[in-house]
């Protein structure tokens, strides 16, 4: 009979424990890292077939390990796509491809050159052309600047993400330690397990992660190239730019670079080290072609003011005494010849051809050769640029006009070597790449210097026609400048487009995997409420049972009275 109270009490105790578990489940129903727990009831026996009630033998924490492994992999892929998509989208915006963007300005520049052929002597008509060119240069500068800024910010993000990675690793190692201790004591550290799973989940969005379960409840976390957490030991990582400007992640104490195969960090490293520099160098190459070709036409023409009395190249060589081929020139020079025309104060003009061989001649050699031409002085400036001056009463040009009095006729190509544009002599643009392009300040100050003619006559539009023709030349990868620029933007657009599609697929996959895991580990509130009713009835029943037993005992005791 006394057993009856033990049984009743055990039922009430078990019921209370179960209510606690249900309460915990309901409270965490919306907690994504929570794993469903259920009490395992066993009927307790004293061993002599006498019933002693019910016990909560354990509390089961539901897990779905195969799906969890798949989620970790899917998280990595999603992290990679998310980070790359966000960066590519920003680059798409920086390329300013829409109306009024770089492509539009480029077309507008060449179209204004075309239109200038009907009023070539008008300085008023030249001003908007120069303004458009300046605008184009500035837009290219700001696109390059925006890409550089984006890359710098990305560098900072990589550094802070590596720090976050280290934090996660040390937190996981710490949890491993505590879980092992708890399991040794025979307790169930379900909440710690949830915390650890949640951290590993976050980590898997950042780098590729594989988990290996150890017998003592410890989980080792590995990436493809390195162990991140082993037992209660967390490796630390650091990211720093190498000599080539690429970000390299290494494990503390090692110089071996670590590659992550997926995750946001891997996407960021891929963009920082490969994709952004590729986009930037395409833009640089394109700008370089624009500058080189426009400058060559400008340098071999004549402005409204006629021949020059002095000019200084805008391009510096690394050394004035090494051959041009080894002098780090941003523009190509081929072997050929440069024809310089020198006009004296009476209008007599002589042409002198100077042989150029970039394999043997240095900038100093070129200056010396020019200096030898009657009426010219040429030298190398302290900034390693070519400076040419007409001696008193002399002016010079590279338009290749016939001599005066007429002699051998006009020279069709006065600069077969491309030396003028390579050295930035009398160029329309200064600079050599996307961040340095600018309109020659002298032309901004006096748009009349824009070389529209070959003959020096204000109405001669021959050089303007050559300038306008650049628009239709296939200068970059067999494409015109305009088409190539659109293509650069379209390539980034295509990346964004395909990453968006992949991201949608991956997001749905992660969602589906999460649902699959949730179907085992998630809390169904309705199920919990049903269980709640179940245990409510159990406690009510046990109480009623004890009350009845008590009444029965009272009746028995009444016999004694």
């Amino acid at each position, binding site marked *: 009979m006394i057993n009856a109270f033990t049984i009743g009490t055990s039922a009430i105790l078990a019921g209370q424990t179960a209510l606690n578990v249900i309460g915990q489940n309901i409270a965490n*129903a*919306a907690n*994504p890292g929570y794993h469903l727990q259920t009490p395992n009831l066993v009927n307790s026996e004293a061993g002599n077939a006498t019933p002693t009630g019910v016990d909560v033998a354990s509390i089961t924490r539901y897990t779905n390990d195969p799906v969890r492994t798949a989620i970790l992999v899917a998280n990595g892929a999603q992290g990679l796509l998310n980070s790359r998509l966000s960066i590519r*989208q920003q680059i*798409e*915006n920086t390329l300013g*491809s829409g109306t009024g963007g770089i*492509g*539009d300005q480029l*077309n*507008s520049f*060449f*179209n204004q050159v*075309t*239109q200038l*052929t*009907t*009023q*070539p*002597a008008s300085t008023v008509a030249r001003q908007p052309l120069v303004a458009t060119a300046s605008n184009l240069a500035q837009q290219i500068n700001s696109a390059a600047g925006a890409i550089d800024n984006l890359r710098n910010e990305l560098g900072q993000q990589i550094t802070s993400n590596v720090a976050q990675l280290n934090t996660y690793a040390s937190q996981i190692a710490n949890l491993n330690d505590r879980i092992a201790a708890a399991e040794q004591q025979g307790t169930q550290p379900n909440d710690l397990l949830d915390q650890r799973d949640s951290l590993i989940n976050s980590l898997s969005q950042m780098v590729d992660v594989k988990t290996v379960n150890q017998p003592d409840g410890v989980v080792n976390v590995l990436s493809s190239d390195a162990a991140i957490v082993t037992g209660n030991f967390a490796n630390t990582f650091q990211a720093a730019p190498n000599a080539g400007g690429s970000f390299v992640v290494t494990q503390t104490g090692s110089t071996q670079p670590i590659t992550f195969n997926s995750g946001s960090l891997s996407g960021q490293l891929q963009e920082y080290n490969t994709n952004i520099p590729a986009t930037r160098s395409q833009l640089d190459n394109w700008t370089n072609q624009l500058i080189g070709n426009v400058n060559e036409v400008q340098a071999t023409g004549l402005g409204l003011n006629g021949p020059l009395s002095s000019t200084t190249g805008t391009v510096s060589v690394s050394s004035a005494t090494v051959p041009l081929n080894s002098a780090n020139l941003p523009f190509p020079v081929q072997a050929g010849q440069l024809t310089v025309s020198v006009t004296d104060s009476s209008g007599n003009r002589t042409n002198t051809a100077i042989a150029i061989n970039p394999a043997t001649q240095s900038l100093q050699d070129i200056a010396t050769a020019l200096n030898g031409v009657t009426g010219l002085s040429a030298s190398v400036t302290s900034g390693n640029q070519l400076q040419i001056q007409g001696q008193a009463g002399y002016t010079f040009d590279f338009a290749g006009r016939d001599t005066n009095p007429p002699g051998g006729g006009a020279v069709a190509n006065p600069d077969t070597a491309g030396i003028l544009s390579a050295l930035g002599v009398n160029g329309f643009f200064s600079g050599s790449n996307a961040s340095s392009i600018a309109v020659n300040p002298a032309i901004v100050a006096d748009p009349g210097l824009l070389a529209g*003619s070959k*003959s020096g*006559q*204000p*109405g*001669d*539009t021959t050089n*303007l*026609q050559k300038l306008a*023709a650049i628009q*239709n030349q296939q200068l970059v990868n067999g494409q015109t400048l*305009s*088409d190539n620029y*659109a*293509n650069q*933007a*379209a*390539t*980034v*657009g*295509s*990346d*964004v*487009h395909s990453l*968006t599609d992949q991201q*949608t697929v991956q997001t749905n996959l992660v*969602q589906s995997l*999460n*649902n699959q895991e*949730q*179907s*085992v580990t*998630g*809390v*169904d*509130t*309705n*199920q919990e*409420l049903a269980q709640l*009713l179940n245990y409510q009835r159990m406690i009510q029943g046990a109480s009623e049972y004890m009350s009845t037993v008590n009444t029965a005992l009272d009746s028995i005791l009444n016999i004694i009275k």
Partner: protein
Amino acid sequence: MNIRVTSQMQANDVILNMQQQSAQLAKYQNEVSSGVRVSLPSDDPAAFAEISHVQASSDNLAAYSQTNNDASSTLNSAVSALTSVNNILVQAKQLAEEANNATTSSNPTELAAMANQVNGLITQALSVANSQPDGNSLFAGSAITTTAFSVATTNAAGQPETIAYNGATQASSALIGPGQTVNTRYAGNAVFQQASGDVFKALISLRDNLQNTTLTGSAQNQAFTQNLTDLSNALSAIGNVTAQQSSSLATLQAVQNLNTNLKTTVDEQIGALKGTDYADATVKMQEQQTALQATYATAYQLFQTGLLNFIH
């Protein structure tokens, strides 16, 4: 299909569906309200490259159309200048014919008056040849800022004796298409001082003969006849240039028509590539809207029902 469905799964599904449908809905809404289907390269990378290419062609055509108009206007000015010169020469010819008849040729007063008229014609011709309707010389070739002709020498009476050409021998040309140019401002010496017929020489010679009181009889008759020949030659020389310029004008007109047609085609192409297909976009927008509404409705329904409603 999962056997167990938890409220968290339902919530996550609803959230994801709402996000994806809202994003699609916003995309179509933007297409419909802006009228532009491709505003960023990623909207349609292949179409974007094509649009940029076609847009560049359209802008090019617009520029060529502009130069074409300018070139036409310059050539029209030139043709009307040449028509004036033509009229001057016709007048001079009439004067020469009149002078050549017996009664007039023997009347020095009348000849002197006619010489005065021819002097006026010379001044007119010079002024027409030097005309600068847009501030630049029509007949100085590429030396458009130079006055084309000047009086080099004068006779004792201070009247023009020889006319010098100060312009360039190269014509000024305008770009009217890729690599396609048209000469707009001709070298004046190739117009008014052609070997086959020199306008100024013909007029000056007529004036000189009219003023020459020593000329009489057959010599005078011969001189006037020569003047008539010279004037006719000058007329046909001017006529040739006028024909050339008129032909250029016709070419310009043809090119302009072609450009206009091309631009229309190209702009239609841009519209088709870039513009919103309203029927398509509106239907898709409606679809997304319906789907989103369904998501809202199911979400509301789902979270309405639960065991909790029945436990009291």
